């Protein structure tokens, strides 16, 4: 089990983390909107996260901090 923290306000909703997650746990929250007007990324079920940090490695904006 790992903990992901999203700096939601700098997320641009590009979705590269969504495709990078080997478990398909990350989604773009279509019902939310951040300061910049983007729908940010979020994790659906943190208990299934293995903390591989693939999402954070593909994020162009350093949105994701991974703890394990």
């Amino acid at each position, binding site marked *: 089990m790992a903990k992901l923290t999203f700096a939601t306000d700098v997320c641009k909703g590009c*979705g590269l983390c969504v495709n990078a997650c080997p478990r398909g746990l990350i989604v773009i929250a279509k019902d939310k909107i951040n300061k910049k007007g983007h729908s940010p990324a979020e994790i659906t079920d943190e208990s299934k996260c293995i903390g591989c940090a693939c999402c954070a*490695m593909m994020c162009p904006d*350093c949105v994701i901090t991974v703890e*394990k």
Partner: protein
Amino acid sequence: MAVVFSKPKALTDAPLHYCPGCTHGIIHRLVAEAIDDLGILGRTVGVAPVGCAVMAYDYFSCDMVEAAHGRAPAVATGLKRAMPDRIIFTYQGDGDLASIGMAETVHAATRNENITVIFVNNAIYGMTGGQMAPTSLPGQVTQTSPYGRDVKTVGYPIKVCELLSALDAPYYIQRVAVNSVKHVAEAKKAIRRAFENQIEGRGFSLIEVVSSCPTNWGMTPQKALDWVESDMIPYYPLGVYRDKSKEA
């Protein structure tokens, strides 16, 4: 719980102005991670280009200099010669390095200047709105090649790694990509290697990073990364083009 991934210290808190899904952000982070890992933040000076990365000086927390268009390797040469104990890197796009700055690039390489060059190749002029670049692929549709790049009239793309590796002098030349987790990990190692070469005083290192431009290619960010894999990497093969540490 231990932090396994967080924003590197060599990046400031300024939000990046790049378009959603632009891989400039990933490459900035890889450079910053190399600076952090090697503990050289206090003595690193970066040289920013003209192009999309023109405001790189806002994003790196080391000292930065803004060079005239294409002249980053010349400015870096001056910085390195005046302050040999500093670590100097340039961060340049394809319009900057392979077009207007080709002379500075080739001559810095052939002098084996002890600098690190990060070359971002996204096959298009991003900042000015998607015109054809020296690295645009044959047949690639851009603002100034609406019927696709016609190699009969505008010539073939410039392969910078191949071109520079024809010179005797450069120490280290490698082409990497950032379109997948695996390639990002390889790119991180290559960029770190390029900084290590400079710290050891070995000479000119250039890392070409095959990058994407979702906005000007007219693709979604993920589709742009897929296009890098399917179209760009076959034309710009990844690999080490020069490694003098392996030559006798």
